[in-house]
């Protein structure tokens, strides 16, 4: 992934985190006092499978430079199989984003378990770096994808 690029641009990133795994993983990163960039605004969803196309598109439309979705690892979904639904949906959403002129990398799905504070920290750090490198989203301001 991209290395941290300090070009002065501070992106806005919305993170949808499933309650059972990734939100708890983010809690663990906090309890362990791991530091990461302050660009993400976390939002708790019951299941990553609840994150629908409308929510992702609304985030980009309202000025997000990146959207992160965190779910349980395959096979570990609290709701049996919601994360598989997310995996398929994200593939389609990436295509849709490309269609409307937004780089698909601006949407990222990661499996982060409740015990993976380190992975949460790494994911946020790397994703923030990537979005900094990509610059502002075309929908958030003067960016060009």
């Amino acid at each position, binding site marked *: 992934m991209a290395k941290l690029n300090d070009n002065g641009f501070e992106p806005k990133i919305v993170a949808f985190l499933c309650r059972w795994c990734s939100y708890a993983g*983010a809690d663990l990163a906090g309890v362990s006092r791991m530091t990461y960039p302050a660009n993400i*605004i976390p939002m708790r969803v*019951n*299941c990553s499978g609840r994150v629908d196309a*409308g*929510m992702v598109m*609304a985030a980009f439309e*309202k000025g*997000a430079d990146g959207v992160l979705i965190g779910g349980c690892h395959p096979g570990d979904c*609290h709701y049996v199989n919601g994360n598989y639904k997310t995996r398929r949906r994200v593939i389609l959403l990436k295509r849709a984003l490309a269609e409307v002129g937004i780089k698909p990398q601006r949407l990222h799905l990661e499996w982060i378990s409740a015990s993976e504070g380190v992975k949460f920290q790494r994911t946020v750090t790397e994703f923030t770096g990537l979005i900094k490198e990509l610059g502002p989203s075309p929908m958030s301001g003067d960016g060009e994808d």
Partner: protein
Amino acid sequence: MSRIGVFVCHCGMNIERTVDTQAVAATLSEHSGVVFTTDYNYLCADPGQRLIKDAITEHKLDGVVVAACSPAMHEPTFRRVAEEAGLNPYLCEIANIREHCSWVHQDRDRATRKAIRIVKTLVEKVRGNQPLEPLRIDHADKCLVIGGGIAGIQAALDVAESGLEVILVEKEPSIGGHMAQLSETFPTLDCSQCILTPKMVEVSRHPNVRLLTYSEVVEVTGYVGNYEVKIRKNPTYVDPDKCNLCGECVKVCPKSVGNEFERGLIERKAIYIPFEQAIPSSYTLDEEACLGLHPLRCSECAKVCEPKAIDYDMRPEYIEESVGAIIVATGYSLYPISSLGEYGGGQIPDVIDGLQFERLLSASGPTIGEVRRPSDGKIPKKVVFIQCAGSRDPERHNAYCSKICCMYTAKHALLYRHAVPDGEAVVFYIDIRAGGKGYEEFTQHAIEEERILYLRGKVSKVYRQDDRVVVWGVDTLSNRRVEIEADLVVLAISMNPHPSILALSKILKISCDADGFLKEAHPKLRPVESLTAGIFLAGAAQGPKDIPEAVSQSSGAAVKAVALLTKDKLIHSPEVVEIDEAICGGCGICVDMCPYNALAVNGAGVAEVNEVLCEGCGSCVSACPTGAAQLKNMTTQQFVEMIEVALQDG
């Protein structure tokens, strides 16, 4: 919601150090709909809670956001505070500005700005929340236990002792399971049947237990507290009330098949009793083996049956029961010996599995406790025990450790040495895993004092040479190849889940793990629960385990079931899906998406939610093409408002 209060916690210095809580409160006071804000040192402490209650009353708040630690910590605390002040608890939300903000950032200015965004998103959420009442549901009081081995027996007894009714279903003609087959148990060398049979009797006579043997669960519908269960009782063709156990039928029966209880070491007749202490104590006519359930075909048994107990016209009986909880204790089976071709499994008669060796050691076994090998009945003077046969071998067999084999192999070798004092016992092992009370001492005793030769290494091949079995292996401690001519080889075969579990897991809608064992709700903190509310797991159905562990887990599962069934009403979260009938097109996509069968398209052509079944995952919401399906208090509209304030400039 137009009168929202925002309370910002310092958490001592935990939040205050990197987040300017006063600035958060001041900024939020400008936010639309917020009529009261304050910051306070510890909101979770009594004075902090009082502050929130007073503000709710004084400012007539109709929504509360507490900006503090993770909702995983104090959401229940603050919702209770809201409720005590007369506010619906579902109108109180927690903004996590500690774990997700102050603890992970160092720049105070940036952390403060992020905290403000987080709090604003929760204000928007509260604004869209509706007051909710927890769903309270009636439930059945009975508990179903599936599987009558030691795990199921223990669970049934514990639940029955609490005063609740239990239905214990066992697929085989007798309860007892694998424990009934064992000779003696490690590490105390208690006679297995001597400690098991009193429990078998107790469970069969318990006034709160309805025992259904030779029976299978064929259908389960419903949900926690209200499962409808259909059980098929297979015909035994023998009326147990009339049968006087004379055994004349067995003498005349012309058909013999492998005796399952004796692991095929001897045969049994088509009409049989599984073992002497079987419960119920009655004969079963195996319809698969019988020459024909028709008086014209054979009917030898019926002719000699004095009390006229044999009834060829017996039919399967279907029993329906309403139960509130289900404990699954279906146990294990052994990895098929024929899959271990490299060890001669299934080809060499003197290569046997651990359970067969148990029967050879057992005083009630086919050799009355004398160790005699299957091929010619001779007493083996050299026995090789191979541990991890089919376990810990991800390339060819099971990847997992079967957990009990180290212990029972030490027991086998020790009991063999006692039975055949001039015999030699050799054990091939990878590691010795003897974690448990008295276990390490037991294996050490076997190695040091019973003159059992332990060789660390794997066996590569086992083959037959004349009347002996040759074992090729390696001793990795001395780095030498080893070739042993043995009289008998005992494989410590891997434990597999019981073959019936796959079909049963589908009937119960619970999941299996990658190895086929039942999956627990949480590997550490919820080991006796399945992910389906009201269905609990006990014994080796959940993973390889020994008797004490199976018994402990059974008692754990029983307590969970009792705790559930002794509640007056069951509480279910009201944050479930609702359907806007005005815009639902009745396409049924939500029905397919729901992992809990909580949705159905009704006669009016719109989707209908069974709120009790809905767990609130929102899969249907994401898939609904019209937006008719919405999660209460987590609507798409709410998320859009939250996203908007999260991304606002400033």
